[in-house]
């Protein structure tokens, strides 16, 4: 914590009111952590109820992914059935109808890599450009993009479908990828992040040395922006991974479905009139769908949590 090098360490209480140099948020300690605060058992219990509410459905999913069709109906929802069928269920899910699930998985990956990756790239470039350059039309760009944050994706889905069908783009991967390339929220986050994270002096120095703007961006700025980029990427990945409405209306060919649309189709197949009971496949498929994204969130915690707090500095 060298940033708050205090001149008179003994000043103690009086110093708290003195204006002093703001600590950069990244390094700032959590305000209450330094002091000894009594832990509250009551509060912990109340919060435990929150946790139970949040995780019980997930536990239900895991438990029931281990049951076969019969056990699903005969055993208690939150406890295991007579047989442990998880691996059989996974094998069945992956091979049902010549492995259509694996294909959906691949489609989802394609949409996520190209869609979320592209969205992050575009948002990073544009956010950086807005933060560090003054160019004609900058204010207009800003106003338009901020206005677009209020226009939700789903409101646009039907109009986008109508336009894409005129252009013959429906029922192709582009119909899903193109609309997910735009993330106004990601641009906003990178923009607020870049203002502080990339010091203008460094850019000036690089210009003095004759480096081109793009060279400076890729060699210096990109690294300084990386916590913000990881945050934007992660949320873009979630948005595309979880995308349902858009692919639902854009795609009519099951071979192009992402996991979400495929699963919902299986589900209606299980509950429909001429029901073909594949509940165990729906449940196991749902579990397989959320595992990668949950794992990504858990492993990248450190990055996205710091990126989020950086974004909120400006609010």
């Amino acid at each position, binding site marked *: 914590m060298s940033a708050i090098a205090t001149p008179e360490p003994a000043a103690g209480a009086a110093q708290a009111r003195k204006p002093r140099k703001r600590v950069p948020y990244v390094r700032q300690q959590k305000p209450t952590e330094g002091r000894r605060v009594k832990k509250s058992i009551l509060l912990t219990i109340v919060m435990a109820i929150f946790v139970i509410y949040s995780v019980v*459905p997930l536990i239900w999913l895991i438990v029931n992914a281990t049951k076969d069709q019969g056990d699903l109906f005969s055993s208690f929802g939150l406890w295991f059935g007579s047989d442990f069928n998880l691996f059989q269920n996974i094998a069945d899910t992956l091979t049902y109808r010549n492995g259509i699930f694996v294909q959906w998985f691949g489609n989802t990956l394609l949409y996520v890599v190209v869609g979320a990756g592209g969205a992050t790239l575009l948002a990073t470039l544009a956010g950086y450009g807005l933060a560090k350059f003054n160019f004609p039309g900058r204010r207009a760009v800003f106003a338009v993009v901020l206005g677009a944050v209020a226009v939700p994706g789903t409101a646009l889905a039907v109009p986008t479908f109508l336009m894409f069908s005129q252009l013959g783009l429906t029922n192709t991967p582009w119909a899903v990828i193109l609309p997910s390339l735009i993330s106004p929220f990601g641009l906003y986050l990178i923009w607020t992040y870049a203002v502080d994270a990339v010091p203008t002096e460094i850019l000036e120095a690089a210009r003095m040395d004759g480096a081109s703007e793009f060279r400076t961006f890729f060699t210096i700025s990109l690294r300084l922006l990386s916590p913000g980029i990881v945050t934007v990427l992660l949320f873009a990945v979630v948005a595309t991974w979880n995308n349902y409405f858009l692919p639902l209306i854009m795609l009519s060919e099951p071979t192009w479905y992402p996991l979400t649309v495929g699963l919902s189709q299986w589900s209606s197949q299980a509950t429909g009139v001429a029901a073909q009971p594949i509940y165990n496949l729906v449940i196991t498929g749902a579990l397989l769908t959320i595992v990668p994204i949950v794992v990504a969130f858990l492993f990248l915690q450190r990055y996205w949590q710091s990126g989020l707090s950086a974004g909120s500095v400006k609010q």
Partner: protein
Amino acid sequence: MASVTLTQSRPMRRNRKDWRGWGFVGPFMIVFLAVLVAPVVYAIVLTLFRQQLVGGSGFVGLENYALLFQDPKFWESLFRVTLFLVVQVPIMLILSLLAALAIDSARLHGTGFFRIAIFLPYAVPGVVAALIWGFIYGNQFGLTGSINDLLGADILQPFSSDWILASIGNIVTWEFMGYNMLIFYAALKVIPADLYEAAEIDGAGQFRIISGIKLPALRGSIVIATIFSIIGSFQLFNEPNLLKALAPNVISSYFTPNMYAYNLSFAGQQFNYSATVAIVMGIITAVIAYIVQLRGSRQEVR
């Protein structure tokens, strides 16, 4: 909120025109115009036409809008999502706020665990969330059946017409409580330590600190979370559309405006009318989001 930073960050050289920034912003704006602005313009054009029985579509001016405003199905769906909004959003945001304050208070055992566990549902796709809860609500192998057996009567009926909106509200709350909690928590974390120290010297208690320091610091993020929640409520589609398979008699094809627009397009082929629903809902959402933001920032000035 954001305009402040705009002027602050307004950089260097104003004397000569500097187009280099467009090299960075350009690609975004091109795609932005193609996939966001163009569909809106196209949809607005569509709303001015109608499919005729003979010979393609004809220009009808604002007739589609007039028709929509007299359409009881549209009003019913709009009323339903408004009711949903008024009840579900405050409950969810208050729960999120409580969770964020509790986690920030450092009075919990194992803060990190609570934070990630409550956030976890956000990573679950809305489709999967609706599927899981749909199963749990079910009488056959869900938990509802077990609870009703325990109580000895059919107390819980998540799919009845009286309960269905609450059932959907529960799913949405479950999905987004942790996300909003994290937004609030991130804003709490950046409160400068000086403020707490000053409050301590003044002898302020925990509740005084919350009302005097934490809640004012949260205002911006509360406004943002409210706007996103309003947008989410007006656009409600995934959850009711998936539960429809389980409760076909309760959830109609015009349960929410978005479902109405969807079914008009894909079941009815009434593309022009469907675009009208989408545009009108977009305008209503944007206006309300704008009002919330205006109110939020006006209080900030006071």
